[in-house]
């Protein structure tokens, strides 16, 4: 398919010997925003981490093509350099490493991979300041060690700030809304919306429909028990909100829109 960024076929994955993903199929086109919802333990976060290449998340069957390349054959850092970005549900605290130092090295690792000249401290500072405004992240936060002592909201804003600086082709947001109050959610969502672009695709993983009021997806998929049980447009979110996930377990799943499209 022309303009396809990501093509997941029959993806099975296990964590610690336990099968979590049991045959996920998903196609994401350029510039599209896909939301993935599902109950606890359905495999949403596992899917996000498998796509980013987390060690210990073993793919047992299936394939993932990213821009026509075998994503699963790439190391995590290669995926990042090729433009895959995961916003963590629980961003990791790294004492002793300042946010700016870390991100400048990340930017330059990616630029080097793409044959671009590395940014010097001044250039990076300029870029960093511009992107920090997007999520209203203060300069003091950028100088502090990565995520150390950040509030929940600051951590999530920091993830979106990193995404803004790294300018990914495929951004995967793993429960970026969880634990946020409404003001923080608005800031994060507006940051994400500002980064929507025809050349950038997004997979937004969320437990709650609330986020989708702010980040309106093009497609919505419901993951149940390691498979996509239902796909549809954004209006599906409202049905889910009304009926809850248990509704899916009682009624036979509707045809998969994305699978049918292929």
């Amino acid at each position: 398919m022309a303009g396809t960024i990501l093509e997941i076929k029959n993806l099975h994955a296990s964590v610690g010997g336990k099968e979590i993903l049991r045959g996920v199929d998903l196609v994401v086109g350029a510039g599209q925003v896909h939301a993935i919802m599902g109950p606890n333990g359905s495999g949403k976060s596992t899917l996000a981490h498998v796509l980013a290449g987390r060690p210990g998340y073993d793919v047992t069957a299936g394939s993932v093509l990213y821009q026509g390349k075998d994503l699963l054959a790439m190391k995590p850092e290669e995926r990042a350099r090729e433009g895959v970005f995961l916003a963590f549900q629980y961003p990791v605290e790294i004492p002793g490493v300042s946010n700016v130092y870390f991100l400048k090295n990340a930017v330059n690792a990616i630029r080097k991979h793409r044959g671009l000249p590395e940014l010097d401290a001044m250039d990076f500072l300029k870029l960093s300041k511009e992107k920090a405004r997007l999520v209203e992240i203060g300069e003091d936060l950028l100088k502090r060690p990565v995520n150390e002592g950040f509030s929940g909201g600051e951590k999530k804003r920091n993830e979106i700030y990193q995404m803004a600086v790294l300018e990914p082709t495929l951004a995967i947001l793993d429960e970026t809304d969880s634990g946020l109050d409404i003001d923080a959610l608005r800031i994060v969502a507006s940051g994400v919306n500002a980064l929507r672009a025809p050349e950038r695709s997004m997979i937004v993983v969320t437990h709650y429909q609330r986020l989708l009021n702010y980040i309106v997806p093009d497609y919505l998929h419901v993951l149940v028990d390691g498979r996509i049980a239902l796909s549809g447009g954004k209006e599906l979110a409202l049905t889910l909100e009304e009926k809850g996930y248990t509704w899916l377990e009682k009624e036979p799943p509707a045809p998969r829109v994305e699978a049918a499209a292929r």
Partner: protein
Amino acid sequence: MEAQTLAVETAFAPGFAAIETAAASPRWLTALRESGRERFEALGFPTTKTEAWRFTSVRPITEVAWTRAAREALRRPDPAPRGVRIRRLSEALADAEPHLARIASFEDNAFTALNTALFEDGLLVEIGRGAVVAEPIELVFDAASAAHPEVSYPRLLVVAGEGSQATVVETWTGRGGRPHLNCAVTEISVGDGAVLTHVKVQREDESAFHVHAIAARQGRASRFTSHNISLGAALARTDLDVALAGEGAECEANGLFVAGGSQHCDNHTTIDHARPHGVSRELYKGILDGKARGVFHGTVLVRPGAQKTDAIQTNKNLLLSREALVDSTPALRIEADDVKCKHGSTTGQLDPLALFYLRSRGLGEDEARALLVRAFASELVSRIPVAAARDAVEAALSARLPGLSEAP
């Protein structure tokens, strides 16, 4: 036992014989050296049955036929900074006598006893009463290459006068690839109300042996800060003994030891709270790679009557390989009842999730590992108040951790 006695006799007897012929020495000094020799002969070299040496075998030291280094490899600032007087011990015996061997006990430590018997013409560093010395006093112990394995007995006495403020830096280097043994003692008297910072950076050649006792005694309301950085030597052992002998004394003990290959690094610390209202903060971190072995043994002692003592002791170790090993024994011995003391020890590997987080942003695996290791060390490196010493430690860490161009 046989072999040990033999080594003692062959290696150290000529030195002992020289004590008696050193006619120029005053009687008290000859007597002191004699008691050092007697104590050493009574103790013998420690074995792994000796409690304080349980994890460190000194056989690699006792098996070598050492000859005494011909020259003392000690450099000092000349002229001394304003407010500081630096003299050879032999030129300053009258001023050294009230302190010499009275701070570093050789009762239970064979190496300190050996140094006391045989120490070279070391240095007396005096910081004048009330002197505020901004410039660090930098001493370099540089063991040069020799044809035979050589042993040195450096001795340093620092006397910080009442209300003075100064920083002493000891850098231990050694090159040449031939075994060298430094059996060293540093004694520090911190006068009432004095603020003294002591920095030790040990980056000797990996064929070297390094045994060093640092002993400090603190007066009333004084402040002593120790930075003990151990990077080099095949076998390195540092004993830090701090006595908070005056009321309201404060002590900060920072330690970083980095060992790889088959290096062995042992740190023994004792913080002795003898008087009320003392404060001590101790943080030692170890980074072990390859087949290296590290030891941290720390005791915080609170004597009866040292009420209102506030002491925290922490040891954190990072193991970078499956074969690296660390033995951590933090201990509190509290004999007073109105005190605030805590201690803790953790040993672990690099956090796999942190590694993944860094890699997911595009950093290579080596670079991510180096970054996390440097970050672990940086808490202690950043505390070193002397730029040159800090830079030397940074450079040594960079050399060991490829993948990083600058400090995080």
